């Protein structure tokens, strides 16, 4: 069901003028699991992260945490993330809508150099939010997604300026 949520959010982003976006399914990346970190980075994924100004993570919650595969993939890059915006969409079958996966991801994203926004999207009881084809059944989620994206794009634009023109140690 997380894939339905990801496709919905991706489609909403793609509607924004001037935004180029790509949907990445971490399950399809050819990243080995017999090592970890930058030594197993996938060149294509790294290139995508290098060009990106912002990331949206759509993450299901398992046992109050994030999927190990998501962490494994995130760990393969570092410089590609620095001073870039990230927002999290939590997905769960229960009533908390991935609130705990979001909280558990925050320190990881901070250490990776990403800048988290203060809006989240929480897909509670996700099985009742989409039909089998992935059509959203409850449009009350849309205004929240739009606010989430407003904030994400503001942060992305601001950080793009900062990365480009504000030199570390030279500000102030």
């Amino acid at each position, binding site marked *: 069901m997380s894939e339905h949520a990801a496709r919905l959010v991706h489609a909403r982003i793609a509607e924004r003028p001037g935004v180029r976006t790509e949907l990445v399914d971490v399950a399809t990346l050819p990243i080995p699991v017999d090592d970890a970190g930058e030594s197993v980075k996938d060149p294509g994924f790294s290139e995508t992260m290098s060009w990106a100004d912002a990331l949206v993570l759509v993450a299901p919650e398992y046992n109050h945490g994030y999927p190990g595969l998501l962490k494994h993939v995130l760990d393969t890059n570092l410089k590609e993330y*620095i001073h870039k915006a990230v927002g999290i969409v939590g997905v769960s079958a229960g009533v908390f809508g991935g609130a705990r996966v979001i909280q558990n991801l925050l320190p990881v994203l901070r250490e990776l150099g990403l800048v988290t926004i203060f809006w989240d999207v929480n897909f509670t009881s996700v099985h009742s939010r989409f039909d089998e084809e992935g059509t959203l059944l409850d449009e009350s989620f849309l205004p929240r997604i739009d606010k989430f994206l407003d904030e994400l794009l503001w942060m992305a634009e601001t950080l793009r300026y900062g990365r480009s023109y504000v030199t570390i140690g030279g500000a102030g």
Partner: protein
Amino acid sequence: MTCPKCGGQMNHQADKLVYPLTATEAESTTPGLDGVIETVFACPSCGWVDARREGSPQLRAG
């Protein structure tokens, strides 16, 4: 640093502390920081990012 993608002048936008994973990397740890500084650059022209580690003349492979 010159952008490898478009030739523009890159901005030194961050110093990120990274922790050594191998004995070789541990030997180049910055004193007092328990890690190595990764110097991160961004290109104002095209947006590309790149980095190098303190004490290393080589760019890190992207």
